[in-house]
């Protein structure tokens, strides 16, 4: 099976325990197809962000597998995992996490620098992505852009390396309801156009109207955020 034929995300028997408080997350299974969209909601502290970090390979599970585009990300070690993440997983954060001191286009190109994308493609792709998302001031410093524009730059950066999967962690938490709807539309449209699967985690119930596939983390993972067994 070629990597394009694998689902964007396959989670099986995922178990994660953390810290003195005994935080535990158990997720028996979760699959996200190529180009599929899904909203994962849940109460604060139930482990939504932790799940995204597990999927991105930023933290290691206690047991279980997380496959992104058919690759078990946790079997990759060190730089190989980092390169794979850069190539295959795009991330959008609540606070966007743009690099200060870098322009809009540079923020997008940094993502390409970290991947193995041919250098000749960087500038044209970054420009095209940003223009598609309605950013005209490509050389404007990120910190001088409006909140909405910063969010679009963050989306462009997440999609820069043509990832199989985009993870969005509370992408509307810092926006008002009107902008929140716009932001979700921009995110979905962009991912759809680029063929990337989208997994949004949020505690905002108003987002549910935008997604055909909606899940509650507490339902998928009944022990999410609970005290681990001794």
């Amino acid at each position, binding site marked *: 099976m070629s990597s394009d034929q694998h689902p964007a995300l396959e989670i099986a028997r995922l178990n994660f325990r953390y*810290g003195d408080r005994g935080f535990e997350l158990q997720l028996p299974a979760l699959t996200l197809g190529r180009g599929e969209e899904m909203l994962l909601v849940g109460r604060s502290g139930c*482990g939504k*962000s932790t799940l995204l970090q597990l999927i991105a390979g*930023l933290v290691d599970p206690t047991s279980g597998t997380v496959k992104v585009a058919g690759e078990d990300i946790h079997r990759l070690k060190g730089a190989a995992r980092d390169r794979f993440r850069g190539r295959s997983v795009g991330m959008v954060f609540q606070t966007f*996490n743009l690099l200060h001191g870098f322009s809009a286009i540079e923020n997008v190109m940094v993502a390409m*620098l970290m*991947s193995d994308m041919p250098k000749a493609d960087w500038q044209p792709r970054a420009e095209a992505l940003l223009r598609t998302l309605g950013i005209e001031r490509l050389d404007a410093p990120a910190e001088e852009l409006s909140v909405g524009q910063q969010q679009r730059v963050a989306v462009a950066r997440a999609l820069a390396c043509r990832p199989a999967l985009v993870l969005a962690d509370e992408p509307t938490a810092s926006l008002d309801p009107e902008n929140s709807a716009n932001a979700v539309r921009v995110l979905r449209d962009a991912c759809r156009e680029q063929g990337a699967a989208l997994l949004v985690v949020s505690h905002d119930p108003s987002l549910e109207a935008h997604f055909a596939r909606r899940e509650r983390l507490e339902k998928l993972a009944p022990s999410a955020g609970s005290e681990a067994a001794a």
Partner: protein
Amino acid sequence: MSDLTIVLRSLRTRMFSTLVVVLLVAVSAGLLLAILSLRSAGERAFERGTGNAHLLVSRDGSPLVSVLNGLFYANPPKAPIEQAKLDELRASFPWAMFVPTAVGDSYRTFPVVATAPDFFSKFEPVFGEPWKFAEGRAFDTSFEVVIGSGVARETGLRMGAKLVLTHGSGKSREGVADEHAHEHNEYQYTVVGILAPTGSPHDRALFTDLTSCWILHAHDRFEREGTHKTVTPADLVAEDKVVTGVLLRLPSRDNAGAPPALASQYDRLRRDGSLTVAIPANEVQRLFGIVKSIDVLFLAMAAATLVSSAFAILLSMINSMSERRRQVAILRVLGASSMRIFWLVLTESTIIGLVGAALGVFVCGAVLFLSTQWLLGAHGIMIAPELDARSAVIVAMGTTLLAAIAGIVPSVLAYRTPVSRNLRPIG
């Protein structure tokens, strides 16, 4: 866009602290380079000032003082050598050069050296470099004066200018011009020659004949005795005809190096307890032997400053870690490996060192320029420090290496930055 862009942007984001640290490194590296350049240049300059005299005889307190007073004009010598002793000294050996000098008067604080015509024909201000006249000639008769290039430059005196001399150094105890100094207004000198620059303290002196010097002091003697008259050479008595030093050169075949008889003549003259005998070249070496320990201290201080600037790099980078952690976490999410982050931060500190070292070369140039101008202006010592390429490369490499070492701790901290914690708390 490259890794270097990320490093440069990171430095630009912390522009103020980056500039301060770069300047600190530049000043430290520049000072170290300047001291390295000046120490050898200073020694060369002092050796240059001793001229071609094998021996200097005076009645100063020590041979070193004798050289400082007689050749570097630090102070007017106090104890004179009388004519009888001078004649005895002249007759004691077939000297190749026997040039008496009397240093004591001044013109606008510049020392006046009364001497014999041989001073211009036999004495070389710098070994192997005889006097050259920019204008005019040596003095022929009394009350003619030849001025050094520095005097001409600073006083504006030109050929044919008239001037009167001041008794003593013309300076107060504080070393500044003394307005109440006694001027020999009765006797005017005429400038008949301007010397070309020699790069020695002689550039800041005026030269005249011994007879006119003696006449000035005989005039003072007559004044003290209550006799007011125009003194002529015929009025001079033995008491007037004194000198403060004698520059001696022994005959030698090749005109270079110390002649075999130097040691024996030196010993012979030293046996005369009334005289102070100095081998100028040796005294300069001795002076530098004394100065060298201070010199090493300066070098150690400059090196310590350089090390402290490395600590400044370390501190500034550690202080920026809180904002850097977020940047590191973002880069890690985008695909940067821990090792790549390590090198990015290490490159940042190395660039600070490299730019600081490069600027340090300019700082060194500025320090050398200012110090050479000051030495030339204040003491007539022309030093020609050369920025030794080897020293420059070693200091630049050392500075860069120190900066890189200073960057290791912040680089390790960046390497170990937990990504998840710096993006959003777990849970």
